[in-house]
């Protein structure tokens, strides 16, 4: 990527898209007060769904997924199934019930449900850990795109990308630009699917629905180049596939910024139907992403290039490479870069702000400065935002995997900690603070064990892989929570009755 060539046309498209976001945000500023703009305005359930999808889309979805398909073939389907199937869990087990608690963040929920400041602080710390890991994946995507756009090496690109991100957040904040999530989703889906349609049309495939059309490339790869996609479990085991898939599902239902979405919609019914539309909009991307990985393989094979078997950088940029190798005009490649940048920027900005809010409201006034005023908390949030951005930048200099793999690690942490605490908190009134604290700590140990002792204890790395530990980890954490809760005093009658009457609508005299 460090070829010294600045991609002027793509750069202009990226700048134009971000200018559009800021102008649209300024236009919506006056509307915000009259609606309820936590993150922009909403019009109906489709708008809520677009907001959910925009909030979900990240560099992992836009760039990373196609990269995993390119390198690992069918194994990447675990990402598609995991990242969409998790919304079923979220809808049926949590969405309606969370709203009935009336708490706005994951630490708020944990603190209220378990009546414990310690549990609340621990949940806030875990939220920040998840934010950092998730942002490292996004920073990697941003850095790879910046590296391509400016023709510079990866490490300077991380620094430039961080500066651009912080500038974007500060500029939006100073101008008071609200996030227009519908516009952001619209831009992302157009920039992702239009180049794919152009590619499949150029190849003479069924281009109107390229999500099906790319199947011809799989056949061509097999028949003409001997590249076989037809043995789904040849390189990975069934256990590895299920472990990753269920970890991503548990993580989806446990990611703090995903859970918070359900508080900012007008009603429970709107929240539920918003999930359906959101899932549909998300699926549009996931139905399409495998095509980029497959088409890139085909173009490489046709061009006589040797098959890449391990370069994570090349795989993470395969969406852009497929468009270039396929001979699309530079503006089409620029569209993909703009979509990837907007996906990574918007989610990272949101996550860093959520993480700094967790620090300033849940940790700073409780552990660092008791009795801090509101103004102190605002300063703490601004300071912690910068600290978080720098910390993520440093970690991104030497990332430990591909974009999708780093994101999957964040999902594993969420699936091992927040998910069990929410699930039992909602569905088992007997769960208490001791259980929740022990459970979340166990979840943290399980999540980081493969990183810390995986080399010396191979069975840990086998049963609790870094990206897939929640498959066994989440049930184990729930077992710990249940055992500790039963061995210690039950929670107060007030909270148990709140859960039964207010959350589950149980009558006083059944």
């Amino acid at each position: 990527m460090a070829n010294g060539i600045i991609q002027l046309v793509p750069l202009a498209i990226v700048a134009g898209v971000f200018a559009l976001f800021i102008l649209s945000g300024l236009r919506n500023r006056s509307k915000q007060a009259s609606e309820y703009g936590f993150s922009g305005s909403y019009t109906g359930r489709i708008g809520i769904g677009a907001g959910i999808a925009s909030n979900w889309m990240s560099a992992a979805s836009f760039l990373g997924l196609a990269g995993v398909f390119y390198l690992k073939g069918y194994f990447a389907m675990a990402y598609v199934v995991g990242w969409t199937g998790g919304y079923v869990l979220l809808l049926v087990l949590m969405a309606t019930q969370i709203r009935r608690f009336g708490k706005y963040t994951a630490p708020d929920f944990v603190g209220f449900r378990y009546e414990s400041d310690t549990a609340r602080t621990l949940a806030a710390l875990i939220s920040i850990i998840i934010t950092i890991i998730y942002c490292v994946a996004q920073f990697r995507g941003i850095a790879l795109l910046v590296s391509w756009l400016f023709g510079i090496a990866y490490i300077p690109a991380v620094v430039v990308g961080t500066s651009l991100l912080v500038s974007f957040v500060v500029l939006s904040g100073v101008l008071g630009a609200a996030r227009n999530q519908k516009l952001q989703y619209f831009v992302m889906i157009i920039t992702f699917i239009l180049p794919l349609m152009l590619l499949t049309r150029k190849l003479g495939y069924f281009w109107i629905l390229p999500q099906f059309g790319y199947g011809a490339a799989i056949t061509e790869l097999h028949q003409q180049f001997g590249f076989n996609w037809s043995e789904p479990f040849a390189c990975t085991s069934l256990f590895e596939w299920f472990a990753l898939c269920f970890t991503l599902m548990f993580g989806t239902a446990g990611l703090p910024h995903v859970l918070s979405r359900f508080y900012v919609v007008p009603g429970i019914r709107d929240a539920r139907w918003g999930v359906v539309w959101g899932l549909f909009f998300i699926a549009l991307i996931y139905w399409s992403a495998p095509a980029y990985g497959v088409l890139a393989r085909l173009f490489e094979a046709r061009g006589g290039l040797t098959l890449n078997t391990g370069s994570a950088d090349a795989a993470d940029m395969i969406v852009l490479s497929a468009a270039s190798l396929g001979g699309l005009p530079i503006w089409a490649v620029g569209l993909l870069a703009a979509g990837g940048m907007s996906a990574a920027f918007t989610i990272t900005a949101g996550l860093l702000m959520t993480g700094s809010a967790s620090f300033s409201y849940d940790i700073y006034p409780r552990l660092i400065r008791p009795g801090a005023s509101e103004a102190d908390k605002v300063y703490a949030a601004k300071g912690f935002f910068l600290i978080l951005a720098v910390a993520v930048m440093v970690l991104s200099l030497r990332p430990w995997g591909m974009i999708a793999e780093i994101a999957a690690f964040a999902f594993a942490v969420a699936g091992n900690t927040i998910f069990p605490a929410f699930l039992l908190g909602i569905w088992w009134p007997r769960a208490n603070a001791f259980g929740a604290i022990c459970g979340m700590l166990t979840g943290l140990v399980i999540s980081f064990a493969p990183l810390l002792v995986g080399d010396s204890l191979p069975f840990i790395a086998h049963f609790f892989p870094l990206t897939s530990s929640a498959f066994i980890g989440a049930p184990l954490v729930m077992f710990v929570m249940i055992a500790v809760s039963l061995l210690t005093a039950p929670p107060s009658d007030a909270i148990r009755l709140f859960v039964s009457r207010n959350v589950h609508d149980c009558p006083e005299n059944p």
Partner: protein
Amino acid sequence: MDETSSNKDLSFFKPQGATMRGEVRVIKLILSGWLIAIVGFQLFAYLLEVSYSELLLEDLVFFNLPIQFWLSGQLLPLWFIILCVLFNVWMDRHSVQSLEGSLRFRIKPLKNGEE
């Protein structure tokens, strides 16, 4: 055990009250459909691969895609959307019925049939 304490002892596997029982019943059905589809499709692909190597998986093409790609990559996300729609339709009807039930108790009948 009095009624209040029995209310406090509810859980997903021990639902209390008609509303929660109905909700848990439909959640169990939805989650069964969710789990069977995820596990079933992968086992199907795995068994085909183990039994026939790639021969059969090569020939089974659906909507232009190898069968395992179509089942996992296209049908499963669609199936999840369908499950979510079914759940929401049930919840909407259920909440309307609950509302009607509660209104019957809350609205006092007017005298002489006045509206």
